[in-house]
Structure formats: C-alpha cells, structure tokens
C-alpha cells in the first residue's frame, strides 16, 4: 500500500513540474513580448495635438501618371489581392479593393482639365463614422478615419454614406496579406493615411513619397495643426478647396486648382 502511494506521489510531482514548466514556457514569451512592446512608441496613445492631412496640387498632378496608386497598392498589400477563380476581369475590377484612384475631370464651361488622386478625405465629421451601427468605423484623435476590423460586420452602410466613394468591401477570400495591413473577407476598408507609418514615426505616406520620387510633388502630407509644417505653410499660401465642400465635413485632404 505504502509503495503504491509513494509511486503515485512521484507521478504527481512529475506532472506538476512538467505542467509548471509548460505554463512558464507558454507565458514567459508573452510577458517578454509585452515588455518589449511597452517600450515601443506605438504604445503611446494617439493625441489630438496633431491632425494629419494632405494637400493635392492638381496643377502638378501629371496626366497618365499613377505612381501614387502603385505605391499605395504595395504599401498596403492591395497588390496581393487575387481575382477569385472563375471571375471575369471586368467584374473583378469593380469588386477589388481600391484605396486611391486617379480621376480626370473637365470643366463643362471652361473646358479646363484637372488630374487628381482621390481617396478617403479623412473628414472631421465623417458620415461613415456617423452611420456605422457598431462603431467599427471611427476617427482617431489624430484625425485618421479607420475601420476596426474586429467589429466591422460588413453591412456596407458606410460605403453608401461616404460622399467620396472612398471605401471598398472585401468580396473575396483573402489568401495573402501584409501583417501591417490586416484584411479580411466581408469587411470594409479604405485609405488609412498609411497609419502604420504614423505609428512608426515616419514622415510621409507612400503616395506622397512616390509622387515626390516622380518629381511632381503634387501631394504634400503633414500635420495641419502644426503651423510650421510644410503642409500648413502651403495651405496658408494658396487657395484650396474641399471636394463636396457644401457638405461642410472639414476634410483633412485639400485640393488646389480643381
């Protein structure tokens, strides 16, 4: 009897030791990661001391150039989207996610032609945020309008409400994506002003960088609240307008020469 109980005790000890070791092995990396993450600037809450925005000088936006669109596609993994098997090219063009597009317009009276990139305008009063039933569509303190993909139910009401048609729905199964830009079937997404770059403290957006690389410099990105920022100085020195300014949404993206 005694022998048996000792044997059981030993087994129990071995089990507890293994379990404790296993638990430690599971928890420690998480704790370490948490500590590391805590040391990063990303853990600082976003504040309203800044408001990110853009100026688009359409006089400098070149006809036929789509460097901003290509750069956005690469930065945000939009080029990884794959047409579902059996779908026509034409329909896929209408269904794939697009964050920034080039538009060419002609004034009916004067005939003046403008080229411009169009994307989420990061409104101060975004209609997409107002209409979202779950609050998945939200505006950060720094003015960036985003979609929380954990609470987006895919109702697409924000797409209906956006005056700029800036949002896209993920119609297909997502096979590959970038870890910095989550994407999932059945959710809505749009331009984030390269929010991953903001959180890493980088200076600009992929589209603005690409436009500068091409030598056009039609897109200026920056902090509207910082009166010394290049963006604010440009905004102060030239006449700009908001697209659909009759809606009084106070957009973060401004245009000149439209």
């Amino acid at each position, binding site marked *: 009897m005694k022998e048996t109980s000792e044997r059981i005790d030993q087994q129990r000890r071995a089990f507890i030791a293994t379990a404790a070791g296993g638990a430690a092995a599971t928890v420690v990396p998480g704790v370490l990661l948490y500590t590391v993450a805590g040391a990063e600037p990303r853990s600082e809450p976003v504040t309203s001391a800044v408001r990110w925005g853009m100026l688009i000088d359409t006089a400098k936006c070149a006809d036929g150039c*789509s460097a901003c669109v290509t750069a956005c596609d690469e930065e945000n993994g939009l080029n990884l989207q794959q047409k579902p098997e059996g779908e026509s090219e034409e329909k896929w063009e209408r269904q794939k996610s697009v964050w920034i597009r080039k538009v*060419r*317009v002609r004034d009916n009276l004067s005939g003046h032609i403008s080229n411009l990139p169009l994307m989420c305008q990061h409104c101060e009063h975004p209609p997409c945020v107002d209409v979202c*039933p779950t609050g998945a569509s939200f505006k950060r303190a720094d003015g960036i309008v985003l979609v929380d993909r954990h609470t987006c139910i895919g*109702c697409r009401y924000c797409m209906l409400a956006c005056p700029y048609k800036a949002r896209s*729905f993920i*119609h297909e199964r997502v096979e590959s994506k970038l870890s910095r830009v989550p994407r999932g079937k059945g959710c809505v997404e749009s331009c984030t002003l390269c929010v991953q770059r903001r959180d890493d403290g980088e200076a600009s957006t992929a589209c603005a960088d690409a436009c500068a690389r091409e030598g056009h410099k039609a897109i200026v990105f920056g902090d509207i609240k910082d009166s010394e920022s290049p963006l604010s100085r440009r905004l102060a020195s030239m006449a700009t307008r908001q*697209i*659909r300014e009759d809606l009084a949404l106070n957009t973060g993206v401004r245009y000149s020469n439209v």
Partner: protein
Amino acid sequence: MKRIVYREWSVAPHRYWALLGILAAVAGVGGLAALYMEHEGHWVTGMTNQVMWGVPHVFAVFLIVAASGALNVASIGSVFGKIIYKPLGRLSGLVAAALLVGGLLVLVLDLGRPERLIVAMTTYNFRSIFAWNIFLYTGFLAVVLAYLWTMMEHKGNPYTKHAGFFAMVWRLTLTTGTGSIFGFLVARQAYDTAVLAPMFIAMSFSYGLAIFMLVLMFTFDQDGRPIGQAVLYRLKNLLAIFIGGVLFFVLVYFITKLYMAKNTGLALFYLLDGGIYTAVFWVGWILAGSLVPLGIIFHPVRGKDPRWIAAACGLVILGGLASMYVIIIGGEAFPMQLFPDQTILASGFFDGVGGAPAHYAPSLWEVLLGLGGVAVAMLITAVGLRVLQFLPESLDDQTVDPDALAKA
C-alpha cells in the same frame, strides 16, 4: 356584430403539409444560397464597390416595410375602433411579425460577416440610424407579441387598445427609421431627402395591406370560410387610398428633385434616360404596381370580383419590389456628384465616367436569398394559423357588419 369565433386553419392535412413542404424547400434553398455567399464571399453576387446593396436589400427592406404596414389593419380595429376590422386584428399581428422575421433574416444573412451578429447586438454607435433600427426591429417583435396576447387572451383584452396604440406608434417610428436609413445619406442625391420617411410609411401601408389581403383571401378560400363584401370591398378601397398615397409622395419627391438644378440630372435619370431603372420605375412601379391595380379596384365589374382583387394585390406587391429596386439600386447606380458642373473623363474606380451609371446585374444567389426570406415569413404564418386561433370562422356580412347589410 355577432360574437366572433376564431378557429385554427383547418385546411386538409395533405394540402397543408404540401404547402409547408414547398415553403420549407424555398426557405432551405435560400439558406443554402446564403451559406454559399458567406463561404465564397460576396464576389459571387452582382454587388460591387459601386453598388454595394443589391437584391437582398430589395427584399429585406420590402419585407420590413410591409411588416409594419401589415399591422395597420389591427390598428384600425383596436386604436380607431372600427368594428369591422376587429376580427382581422389577430391575423394582422401574425403576418406583421412573420414578415419582419423574414426581412431581418435576409438582411442579416447578407452581411459580410453574419457570424458577427452578436457584435451588432452588443456594440452600438447611437449616432447611427442603423443602430436605432436594430432596437426598432427587435422591439417591434416584442410589441406585436404583447399586442397579440392582449387580443387572444381573455385576461389581456382590457389592454388591447393601449397595446394597439403603442404598437401603432412603434411601427410608424420603425418605418420612419427605415426610410431614414436612406433619407439621412447626404452623399447620394437619390437619398438625402426627408420625404423618404413619410414615403416609406405610405409604402408600408400599401404593401403590407396587399400582402395581408392575399393571405386572408387564400387562407379563407382554402378551408371554405366566407368573406363578405363588406370586409373585402372595404379593404380594397383602403388599398386604393394607400396606393394613391404612395403616388402622392412619388410626385412630391420628383417635383422637389426637378426643382433643384443640382438634382435635375437625377430626376431625368429615373424618369427618362436611366435604362433599366427608368423601365422598372415606369412599367414595374407606376404602371403595373400602381395604376393597373387602381384600375382593377375601381372597375365596375372586376373591382367586385375577388380573383381580380387578388390580382390587384399581387401587382401591388410586385410594384413594391420594383419600387425598392428603383430606390435602393437605382440610387446607388446613379453617379455621385463629386465634381458639380464638371465631366469625369477617366477614373480608376468607376466614378461615373461621362455620367455613366454603375453597373449591376443581380446574381441568382441574391434572388434565392430574397425569396427564402419571403418563404420564411409565409412559413411562420402558415404554422401560426394552424396551431393557434388567428382566423375568424366567418367574415360574411351578417357576422361582421349587420348594419351595413341592413343599409344595403
């Protein structure tokens, strides 16, 4: 008025089970279509980033709006005290609840992430009219069930008038909310108008009554219960008034749109050069869905024939679906006015180049899901009628309105 006796629907078992079988099959196919769309993603539908609400929304909004209107008959009886409508109150409540469930199912199953319904039920943004509607819809079911209890349970009878009044206010709010889902959208010219809210109320009266009348006539016909002229003529005349009400709001809508220079293009799109949307508007909604039923109802001979009256109801329902197609999908297809007085020459995102409307071709899956919702509504009605006493034994003239008969 004689004492009204209610009895379960006593249609022959083989006919009843056949009906249930057909409805369950249609509902099942709709469920499978939803499962397929959910599994594959919305790329298998005709919906795009330009037209993001398709045929499922046409059915869902139609059913939800009709649900509110189907309860109208009960309101007229218990709130406004019209005795002739009182025997119809129970059926009115049942049809209303059933239509709402059918519509909500379609709406939910068309979500990009239907499995996140729990998020929609637990996380709210109260600035969203959509979030209000979640409460209005679920609350409607609770209110109608309570109202039905006061009508069907002797102990509840004293509260019928109060419950009926509350249900009436609730459903008017619900339809206002549904109309406002579109009315509150400043982005799109077809929406962005307060007139959509009362227009949806008028639509709810018309579509809900048409469905109610068809259910009433079918169920009574199947187990040989009589419907007298007093009830039938009164209902069809009421339907005519509601059809007229919808037409009035359509007229107001277009007059205001035409009057404003910036919206003239939109009005002309619907009325003249919108292709499929113009055709569906004039042929489906105005002609077949409104003017022809009015012609039937007021025809000296056909207007007295139950079969023709049923045909008029069917046409109103088809016209209702047409109206939703025109409002919802036409409103999305019409290009957004991003640059007033400028023409879009090229766009990387289908922004209405040269004023072209967005392309949309509904897929079979969407239609099946929509029909599945209709089948679920009818299934609930059929089961309810069989197990509980919703239907009065007779609606002949002596039973419902002996005074009217004496006058005639």
